[in-house]
């Protein structure tokens, strides 16, 4: 097709005269190509039965990427900031929640059961540094058949001092505590380390 390149450009530029300059054969050929092009754009190609299963069967389950490559892919570069972003987020959380750096341990409360053998008591209460030495917050349940009273309370890790209040008047330290400390007021507190 002589001068076809120029013709094509003129036709693409929307010059109606370009089409008029084509010979009848060229016009017919062009129509054939145009029809084929439209067919490609709108065609729905159906795959033979079992095609997907066969393709999946030959694909490997995982692609073996070397560890060095994987770690490099997490580091800045290639537009990725995964490690710095995670580290930054963790530092923010640590600062925001004041994670204790001195004690080093977790700060989750621990369920602690306090028991007292007082078969004749009418009521037993637990007061301590963990509840502001307030009455009416931690009543022991009991007595059971053996004369024991008990209560379970959540305590933060650390050292706590406490007493039992029997019948709303008598304060006694826990006889089973492993440590006692004078309270400065003439009494002795039981001490528990969590």
């Amino acid at each position, binding site marked *: 097709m002589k001068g076809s390149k120029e013709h094509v450009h003129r036709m693409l530029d929307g010059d109606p005269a370009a089409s008029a300059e084509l010979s009848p054969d060229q016009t017919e050929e062009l129509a054939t190509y145009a029809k084929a092009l439209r067919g490609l754009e709108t065609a729905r190609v159906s795959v033979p039965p079992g095609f997907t299963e066969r393709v999946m069967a030959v694909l490997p389950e995982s692609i073996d990427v070397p560890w060095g490559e994987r770690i490099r892919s997490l580091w800045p570069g290639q537009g990725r900031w995964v490690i710095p972003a995670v580290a930054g987020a963790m530092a923010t959380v640590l600062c925001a929640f004041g994670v204790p750096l001195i004690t*080093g341990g977790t700060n989750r409360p621990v369920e602690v059961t306090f028991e007292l053998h007082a078969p004749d008591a009418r009521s037993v209460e637990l007061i301590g540094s963990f509840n502001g030495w307030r009455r009416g917050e931690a009543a022991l349940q009991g007595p059971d058949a053996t004369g024991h009273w008990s209560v379970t309370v959540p305590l933060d890790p650390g050292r706590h001092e406490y007493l039992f209040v029997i019948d709303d008047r008598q304060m006694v330290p826990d006889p089973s505590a492993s440590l006692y400390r004078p309270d*400065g007021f003439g009494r002795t507190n039981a001490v528990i380390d969590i």
Partner: protein
Amino acid sequence: MHMSRMTRAVLLMWGVAITVSTSAGDTVPTDWPALQSLCEEAGLDATPVREIFRHCQRERIGIGDAHAMLGWAIEASREELPARPVMAKIVEGLGKGVPPEDIAEVSRQRVRHLYRAREIIRAADGRLAVEPVIVAGAQAMESGVSEDAVRVVVEAGRDSRAGDLQALLEAGEELYLAGFGSEDIPPMLIDCLQRRLNRVELRRAVRYACQQRQRGMEPRRIRQALWGGEQGSQQQHQNREHNGQGGGIGPGPGGPRHGRGRP
């Protein structure tokens, strides 16, 4: 309690200074809002202050008595000492129905111990003078451990991290409360330091020592039982390091009297 003349002089001067500053610097507030303003100006934590106010009003404690108690927390805060343990003592006293004047006196003593503990720790290494360590030192002295013993332990542990020194001071107090004399505490804890016990190992060693002391064993014999004599202990320590075993020290504590979560 043994105290050098210099220590006595410093304590006396400081006591006088605080008494003068609290009595002359602050006029006693005439109403609760004025006392609250004083507390706020001193930067006291609002929660325990509210708790103390509630107690005072419920027990009909006058503003003068309330100020006498809280004045020590205010003073601690102004001196940049931990004020929380002072307020905790006030709350404890009120919860137990202790007369306000006794609470004020115990609070004064607590501030004095906090001050002394901070001075001792600062002298060893200023970076260690953080609240938990200061409080542990003060509580040890409050329980009866001599200032000299606290000083020796702090000096010995000056290369430790703050948390480790705190644990060491708490261990010293525990030993004292179990019947060790103040003079027996530093050697026992220095043994632990030299063997680089971690906090769990330290706790086990102290528990064991306390149990043996309560059974009547002499401190010197307890150390021997723990370390097997100086030579033996050094050899054991070297062997342990050589074998790459960091854990375990001497005999176990014989089982705690209460497990974790059950006193």
